[in-house]
């Protein structure tokens, strides 16, 4: 599998995403948001940042970039797409994932290590996390409070589409471990087919011993393995 890391005006996590994937031996290219070609075997990464200055609402303008038509078509064809932080916001605004990311309930920008527990254990992104151990992954956002109406939340849970919830170091999903007020502690969700993941925490920032933490690699490895042996 190769990777296509999309760059919008205002994206800043593309270098970290590329670095972390290249460390795992993945051939990675950056895709400017005006490009419209994505190969079927590419993992599309929508990285974090402040695309279009977060004007109007986070992700609201980026979804009109030409590349997003290709990303949508890629997902429709079963290709893998992961949106991280601002990328998650863009996927929601584009209607590729339900709900919306709102201002943190604390009103603070939160930049800290959190723990995540995989809820779904069968998607390409999470089947490699079968042990269910809590992953330590950093967050860095001011608008990461996942919100959707109750029916949508129920549908996500009934469909096994909650990828990650915020938890404590022991893996317990408790309100104190929720850094932003997300509904039901949700940190990441999947589309119906399971090939599109949106998550607020940054796995690419937990990718090597020098950073003190390699837990993020488990998510990359899961999707790489899934692509190699579907």
């Amino acid at each position: 599998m190769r990777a296509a890391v999309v760059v919008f005006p205002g994206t800043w996590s593309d270098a970290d995403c590329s670095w972390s994937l290249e460390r795992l031996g993945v051939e990675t290219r950056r895709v400017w948001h005006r490009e419209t070609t994505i190969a079927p075997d590419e993992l599309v990464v929508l990285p974090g940042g402040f695309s279009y200055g977060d004007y109007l609402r986070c992700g609201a303008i980026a979804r009109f970039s030409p590349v997003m038509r290709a990303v949508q078509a890629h997902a429709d064809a079963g290709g893998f797409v992961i949106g991280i932080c601002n990328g998650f916001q863009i996927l929601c605004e584009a209607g590729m994932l339900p709900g919306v990311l709102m201002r943190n309930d604390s009103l603070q920008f939160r930049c800290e290590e959190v723990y995540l527990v995989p809820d779904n254990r069968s998607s390409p992104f999470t089947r490699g996390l079968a042990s269910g151990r809590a992953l330590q992954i950093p967050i860095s956002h001011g608008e990461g409070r996942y919100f959707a109406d109750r029916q949508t939340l129920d549908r996500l849970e009934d469909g096994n589409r909650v990828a990650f919830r915020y938890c404590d170091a022991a893996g317990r999903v408790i309100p104190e471990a929720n850094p932003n007020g997300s509904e039901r502690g949700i940190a990441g969700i999947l589309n119906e087919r399971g090939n599109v993941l949106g998550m607020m925490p940054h796995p690419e920032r937990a990718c090597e011993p020098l950073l003190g933490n390699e837990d993020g690699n488990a998510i990359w490895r899961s999707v790489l393995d899934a692509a190699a042996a579907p």
Partner: protein
Amino acid sequence: MASFHARINVMLKPLVNDPQGLAVRDGLLQLGFSGVSAVRVGKRIEVTLDAADRARAETAVREMCEKLLANPVIESFEYELREQTPAQA
């Protein structure tokens, strides 16, 4: 073609938690406005547009709100539309 001016208000739906509004409310209470019971913060967007007539202008403004200016998951919108004389435009 005539010129129109739309004043669009985008507000969070009533059931959506608005921590920004709560913080502003607390600020007002601290300033001594003890009668304040609730504050909600929204957005005001002004759009100037050309359209053949008022009905078409209204259709366009509504579509702008539905497709981009408001997120229907969390926000509602309302607007005032008025025709502008050339001097105002």
